[in-house]
């Protein structure tokens, strides 16, 4: 039975069809906490990582072409795709750089201002380098992402003034 609180009707959790029966829920929780299930899932992810890396590299090539053509809305959409996929491909730094680029373009779009091509170019270069080799990404990618993030923050602050 539902009850009313002010103008809201509340349906208690006990009245909602559960995802699993009580017995299965207990089994599910022990399965979820079981390290073996997690290890199995991580092995499955590892099997897919090469494929994911290939997809990220293709997207980095695509974003480079879009930036060269000055198509910033497309660059923003592709950088969003990269930031979502890169971490699952073991390219964490690439994901972080793509995230900084996305946030810069999102902020510029919000201000209805044209993005600075030089800043876009720096990000594209960084994406290409970080996605190139895992070793390079591990050595330089995080520092580059931090520097780009600072640069973007400075530029956005200048625009605000």
């Amino acid at each position, binding site marked *: 039975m539902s009850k009313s609180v002010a103008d809201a*009707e*509340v349906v208690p959790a006990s009245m*909602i069809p559960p995802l699993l029966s009580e017995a299965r829920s207990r089994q*599910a*929780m022990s399965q*979820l906490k079981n390290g073996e*299930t997690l290890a199995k899932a991580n092995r499955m992810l590892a099997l897919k990582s090469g494929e994911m890396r290939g997809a990220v590299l293709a997207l980095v090539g695509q974003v480079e072409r879009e930036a060269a053509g000055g198509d910033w809305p497309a660059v923003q959409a592709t950088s969003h795709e990269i930031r979502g996929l890169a971490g699952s491909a073991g390219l*964490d730094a690439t994901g972080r750089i793509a995230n900084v680029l996305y946030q810069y373009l999102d902020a510029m779009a919000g201000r209805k201002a044209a993005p600075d091509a030089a800043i876009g170019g720096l990000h594209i270069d960084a994406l290409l380098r970080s996605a190139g080799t895992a070793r390079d990404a591990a050595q330089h990618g995080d520092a580059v992402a931090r520097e780009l993030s600072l640069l973007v923050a400075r530029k956005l602050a200048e625009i605000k003034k």
Partner: protein
Amino acid sequence: MSGGAFEHLKALVVEDNQHMRILLRSLLNALGIANVFEATNGEDAFVLLRDKQPDLVLSDLSMTPMDGIAFAREVRTSMSSPNPYIPIIMVTGHTERHRIEAARDAGVTEVLAKPVTAGNLFQRIGEIVDRPRAYVRCLHYFGPDRRRHAIENYGGPFRRREDFENDLAVR
């Protein structure tokens, strides 16, 4: 082979990126969910929701023609929705506060930020299994209770502005 507790569940993955769909399917398979349906946008997902009657939805946010927010709202409030109570996990790279709030206000059950890890996805599924939430229906919202932390035996006044104003009027 037994899939354990999850083997009879059916899941729907709504995601426009093929690689992300594969990844999510793999993780669900690892958990023992073999029946995984896929759609590339909210419109197609709604059709599958009616036809396949899944038990759980994993949905991206940015998609066309119908994005994840509109899809969640449709599932929760449409007269033709086959299951307004279905758990929806929004899997998104859009972690900006206003977007997360929009997802919450559309009736999403859990939000999972990309990059997706097995641990994070399992944690969200665990929340749904272990801590099912009440649902709230009011003028502009239907979905899981958005107040996560209820204080048991709360003896204070209600927290809505009109409750506060009524309380003052009574005094």
